[in-house]
């Protein structure tokens, strides 16, 4: 069965070629949903452009006919962000999958939207840091998350994705260095150093116009090329672990350890998230089990550097213990250690850890929150989750310097059971509502969270946001419905 109309289909075929466009329901159906509770919605067309020019022409057509366009790479965002709220054209960018440049001297790469974490990590590992041909070390890395390796590097970065270098260097949107974007009205613009030469190394010292396309969930344009900083792989790596009886105690330890800026990452997971798979539906943890388990990844250029970091870490643990913080020793299972050091990992990213046997649904209140709010919100969230029959499978991760970090609750649910879906959605929305006054902000937010955000946002902020959106996208064709402002 076909959707849309034949005239537009013919226009799209002219632009991208008949092989790269479809309006058949059988082709459209995988784009109707994702792993979250988002209600499936049918697009009317899917197109797979191969060039910037094709994207421009599709956007001009869409503008002319006022058809929504949803940028799409792999649809793994855990926010229903590619579900076409108002139908329209899914712009599947997987065919634009070239790694255009890896500069091993200036340490950046330029990629297209379709470049997967799998392909990028393989290419970076095969490229050695060097100066004029003289090699310093083996391989580069980027901030690898724990998502499926097929996910797009670009889509992750422009939506404030979180990778394994977040503690040392920052989240992935902080590692972006230049971009090329097609505006909703079809013009192409370069932003950052690439606007002046073919060097894609930095946005600074220019006005930060990349902000118009970062964190906007594909509602302001199509990013067609992205420069990102890459980092030499440090040959020595270790994972240090400690547990705690409470969220308060684990936070104290994490914040102190982070002040030293010695680790790549420090994360804590609640007992429920440490179970594989996450306990579903909720059942209490054994009374003698720690509430939180934490790991920190340290890396270095020599065994001595690693030994120094281990020594400092031990000091932090001892100092905290001396103050009365209850920290409990525990050993990380080898499989878990692998999952933390061998990234991107298809094992972690497969979602088996999160959703085995529960019925396919996964969502999260995934948020950025000031570290001091973690224990307060954990207690609130725990109460909410248990009330809804869900396990408080919570994660804290510090982002570069103890200012703020991830607070998130990975939530499996049974998609076949309306009550289970409802409970998960209600619990998560309630968590977001509870968190906003504490400085917590959801990332890659589903529409439901966006509505919560907008309800309490500064009026001037919403005014400016709307003005920018209207200026860039006068016909509101780009991923409409996701920001809750139009």
């Amino acid at each position: 069965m076909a959707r849309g109309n034949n005239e537009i289909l013919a226009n799209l075929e002219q632009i991208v070629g008949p092989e790269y466009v479809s309006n058949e329901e059988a082709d459209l159906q995988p784009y109707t949903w994702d792993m979250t509770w988002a209600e499936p919605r049918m697009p009317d067309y899917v197109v797979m452009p191969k060039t910037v020019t094709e994207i421009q022409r599709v956007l001009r057509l869409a503008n002319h006919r006022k058809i929504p366009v949803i940028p799409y790479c792999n649809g793994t965002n855990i926010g229903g962000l590619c579900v076409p709220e108002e139908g329209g054209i899914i712009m599947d960018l997987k065919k634009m999958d070239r790694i255009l440049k890896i500069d091993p001297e200036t340490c950046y790469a330029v990629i297209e939207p379709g470049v997967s974490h799998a392909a990028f990590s393989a290419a970076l590992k095969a490229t050695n840091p060097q100066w004029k041909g003289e090699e310093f070390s083996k391989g580069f890395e980027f901030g690898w998350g724990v998502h499926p390796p097929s996910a797009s590097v670009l889509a992750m970065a422009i939506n404030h994705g979180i990778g394994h270098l977040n503690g040392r260097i920052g989240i992935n949107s902080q590692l972006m260095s230049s971009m090329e974007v097609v505006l909703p009205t079809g013009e192409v613009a370069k932003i950052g150093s690439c606007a002046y030469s073919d060097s894609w190394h930095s946005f600074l010292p220019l006005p930060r116009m990349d902000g118009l396309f970062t964190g906007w969930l594909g509602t302001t344009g199509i990013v067609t090329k992205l420069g990102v900083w890459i980092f030499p792989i440090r040959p020595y790596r270790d994972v240090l672990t400690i547990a705690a009886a409470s969220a308060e105690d684990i936070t104290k330890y994490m914040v102190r350890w982070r002040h030293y800026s010695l680790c790549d990452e420090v994360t804590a997971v609640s007992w429920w998230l440490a179970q594989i798979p996450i306990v579903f539906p909720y059942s209490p943890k054994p009374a003698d089990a720690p509430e939180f388990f934490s790991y920190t990844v340290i890396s270095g250029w020599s065994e001595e550097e690693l030994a120094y970091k281990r020594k400092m870490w031990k000091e932090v643990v001892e100092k905290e213990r001396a103050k009365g913080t209850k920290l409990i020793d525990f050993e990380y299972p080898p499989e878990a250690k692998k999952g933390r050091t061998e990234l991107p990992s298809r094992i972690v990213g497969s979602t088996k850890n999160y959703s085995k046997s529960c019925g396919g649904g996964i969502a999260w209140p995934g948020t950025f929150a000031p570290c001091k709010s973690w224990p307060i919100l954990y207690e609130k969230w725990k109460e909410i989750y248990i009330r809804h029959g869900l396990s408080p499978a919570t994660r804290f991760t510090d982002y570069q310097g103890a200012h703020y970090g991830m607070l998130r609750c990975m939530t499996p649910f049974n998609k076949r059971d309306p009550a289970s879906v409802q409970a998960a959605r209600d619990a998560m929305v309630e968590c977001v509502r509870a968190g906003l006054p504490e400085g917590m902000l959801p990332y890659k937010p589903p529409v439901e969270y966006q509505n919560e955000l907008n309800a309490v946002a500064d009026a001037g902020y919403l005014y400016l946001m709307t003005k920018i959106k209207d200026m860039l996208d006068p016909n509101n064709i780009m991923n409409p419905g996701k920001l809750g402002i139009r």
Partner: protein
Amino acid sequence: MSHLLKNKNLKELAKIYDWVSMCTHCGNCKYGYEYGPTANFAAMLCVQGDKFNFDSYRGSRGKVSLARSLLHNRIGWSDKVAHVLFTCTSCGACQQMCETDIKPWILRMFETLRYEAWKQNVAIPENIKAWSSTIGTLYNPYKEPHEKRLDWLPSDVRASLPKKAEYIYFAGCTASYRRKQLARATVSLLQKLKVDFTVVEDEWCCASPLLRTGQYDLAAKFVEHNKALPEKYGASAFITTCSGCYRTLGRDYMMDAPEGYADKYGKMTGVKVLHTTHLLEEMLNKGEIEFTGSFNKKVTYHDPCHLGRHAEVYETPRNVLKAVPGLQLVEMYRNRKFSFCCGAGGGVRGGFADYSLETAGKRVKEAEATGAELVTSACPFCYTNLADAIELNKSPLKMEDIVEIIEPIVRRK
């Protein structure tokens, strides 16, 4: 609510909805990837997605999604649905990548979807329909008379074979009718190795093409018939050079769902199923084989999906090749569990010959890139597709099955 099982008419599919619904839509199955200490493996493995682009075609996610969309009554059957279903080669790469509870059910789900498709008024590929219309009486999908099934076997050899034996050499339809030299080489090899075997005139198609294309009802009598052969001929094992037959006899006849169809057709018990390379490896290990010559060539091995991913036999054929004097084995980038299909399986060679050969052409290019002079495999069906692609693309590569490499240069110690 949109995730409820609404379409109860799709009875077979509905039966496995519990498993289908375990897919999280994560997309791991869309691309091959593995972390490695020095280099990461990353490559497209889905034959179908590589050709037809959209997510509907790419890995299992698109087809699980299709199954759900049909069960939820969100979409109806169409020719396009049939195209999505029948252009998958059942290579199993997506299943290999998946890590959630749907994993073991993925290929079974594809076959169940195809089973349901046969009951709809949709465009099943004409060629599949054509062989399906005669297989019930000819017992092979090549539309050849059953009486000619043993024509490949020289009459003097036939006369010399015992009526009853320990092994039944199950040649399969492709070797019997299209790649007769492979059947002859296998028989000669088994004779040289003094294996107690026979060849039977009432061998029928193993039912692989029927099961892979979802023709469950037609498959029943084939399974029943072949299952009775060992007892009839006093044999305790089937041995085959065909990976498709190996998978079907060894798994579909012997294992319950989701690995096999014993739940549907009853279990074959008390019988061993071996691929020829299993026997070769075992005899090599026991020191029972002596090489009388060498094979001085650089060779790359193509993993048949039915032997590799479906049955997890990766090292056996390699061990056999490594034992051959003079043979230098080189690997393609995509190998073992991350191999790339030859493009023939799942009914695709019959249903979509051009696309099938295009896929084989990609594999041939990959083989060429190793610098090998010869590509070998352990399946007459892979042989056919790769050899045809070699010819079509005027590739300098030669194609030989493992048995063809081994047979001229061995004897029993």
